[in-house]
């Protein structure tokens, strides 16, 4: 267990940590997150005393870490950094065995550990142990970085944005691997990131920091449902709206409002011209009182229309209509069965509110799932 008691740290005038107090339970995967400069990395580094706090105490399993020998303390805490930091002058095997060797393990003891760990991440010993870091891909290097932190079986592992420099696919597979390893080996992991995706995926507990203080410490679920601060909601923006997809959405949220409308008395050639100008192939026909009458498409005009006739005479009324407040799911079904590929949305007074096409539906779903998208 790691316990912070009123820990503060300043660099000159700027206070980086302002009296932090919190506890990390044994075996928890704790993610420190927040905007840059919030003190998350500093907090992490105070745990293995790479940074000394100005005041306050950090207790590790009940012992004041300031009383422990820093070099020995660090050997008992795994450490993974963003730049990976494998020693380029050592082979993969030597890198993994760094801490066991510092602890004077004999070779008979550390070599099996190296083999076992390499197997754990699917990198066979024979193929990889004697390579130098520069011969590995970025993802493989960081796998070794993680293994190096685990080699002396420390109960606590610190990870400082370990996957920040990796491409998305590699990052995802490493996230899964680390989560799996953590579950299997039951480590306490303290993990710094600025990526909310990563935090939600990995964490048992998320500690949200800002300006050297903790804004909220909660499980991912709890934080999504009840963010304690507007900044947190902003950080989780897209994830929160993903939740609200389940909530009732209405047809109004999917429709586009810029639609081409014409009175039923409009004549054929004029309406063709109008559609061509707007680059559409159908439009909505209105009654004289602006209520919805029907639709007309270029195709129908071509097959039925003669010059000089009013479009009201041959308009179609087969396109489904929905009310503005209609449930999104029902609207979706109507859209799917609509012969014209769109549905017309009507206001309560039967005037036209807009259209839902397959494109507008897809865009609205995308916005809801992944946050506001560039249109």
């Amino acid at each position, binding site marked *: 267990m790691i316990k912070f008691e009123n820990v503060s740290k300043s660099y000159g005038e700027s206070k980086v940590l302002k009296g932090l107090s919190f506890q990390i339970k044994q075996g928890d995967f704790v993610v420190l997150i927040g905007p840059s400069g919030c003190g998350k990395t500093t907090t992490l580094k105070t745990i293995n005393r*790479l940074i000394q706090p100005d005041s306050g105490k950090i207790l590790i399993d009940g012992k004041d870490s300031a009383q422990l020998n820093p*070099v020995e303390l*660090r050997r008992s805490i795994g450490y993974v950094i963003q*730049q990976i930091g494998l020693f380029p002058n*050592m082979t993969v095997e030597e890198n993994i065995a760094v801490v066991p060797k510092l602890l004077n393990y004999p070779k008979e003891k550390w070599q099996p550990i190296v083999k076992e760990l390499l197997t754990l991440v699917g990198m066979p010993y024979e193929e990889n142990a004697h390579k130098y870091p520069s011969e590995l891909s970025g993802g493989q290097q960081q796998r070794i970085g993680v293994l190096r932190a685990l080699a002396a079986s420390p109960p606590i592992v610190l990870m400082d944005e370990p996957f920040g420099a990796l491409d998305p696919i590699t990052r995802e597979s490493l996230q899964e691997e680390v989560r799996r390893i953590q579950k299997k080996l039951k480590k306490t992991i303290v993990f710094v990131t600025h990526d909310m995706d990563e935090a939600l995926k990995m964490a048992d507990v998320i500690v949200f920091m800002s300006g050297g203080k903790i804004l909220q410490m909660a499980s991912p679920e709890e934080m999504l449902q009840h963010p304690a601060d507007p900044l947190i909601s902003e950080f989780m923006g897209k994830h929160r709206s993903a939740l609200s997809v389940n909530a009732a959405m209405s047809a109004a949220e999917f429709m586009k409002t810029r639609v081409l409308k014409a009175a039923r008395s409009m004549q054929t050639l004029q309406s063709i011209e109008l559609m061509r100008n707007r680059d559409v192939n159908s439009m909505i026909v209105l009654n004289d009182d602006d209520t919805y009458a029907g639709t007309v498409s270029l195709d129908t005009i071509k097959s039925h229309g003669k010059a000089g006739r009013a479009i009201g005479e041959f308009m179609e009324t087969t396109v489904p209509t929905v009310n503005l407040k209609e449930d999104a799911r029902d609207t979706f079904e109507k859209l799917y069965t609509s012969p014209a590929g769109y549905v017309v949305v009507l206001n309560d007074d039967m005037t036209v509110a807009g259209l839902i096409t397959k494109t507008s539906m897809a865009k609205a779903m995308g916005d809801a799932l992944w946050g506001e998208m560039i249109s």
Partner: protein
Amino acid sequence: MSNLMPLILEHLMIVLIAASISVVIGVVLGILSYWMNYLDKAILWTAEIIQTIPNLALLAILMILFGLGNVTIIAALVLYALLPIVRNTYIGLKSVPIYLKDAARGMGMSKLQRLMKVELPLSFPLIFSGIKIAVVNSLSIAVMGVLIGAGGLGYPIYRGIQTNSMERILIGAIPVVLMALLLDYLMTKVEKRLVHKGSVN
């Protein structure tokens, strides 16, 4: 030619002894200036000032201390070789990426362990090139030894100057040039082998 060989060997001997001593002193001073922030300027400045003292003047000063003979020229060569070695050691250690030093510290390495396991191996290429410069320079400076009664290839060159004999001058000078080229070539090869894999990329 037969009486040239002992001179060549003596010349080489003087240079190699001087180089070995300056490597030890230079690397140690380089490490000290890296470790002690307030010392680095003083050490580097001193090495630079020594470098600017004219050969003749330095030899004269050392002669007062050490008398005539090989010891004096060796001492002079050591002093001249210090700058490239100290400076390259210092720069090499300084330029090991911070994140690697952080990683080493975070793994629980002591200051000495960090130096021996990470910092020195990684700055080795730069240190070695400093040594190479020092050795090649020493080969030509060692010729001055003849002025203070030291052995080596300075003797035939000096005699050549005195007797106005180009032939004698060349007999002394050509082996110096050849040795310099050969040593540079050999050390470059060694350097490449050592740097081959374990370099920072």
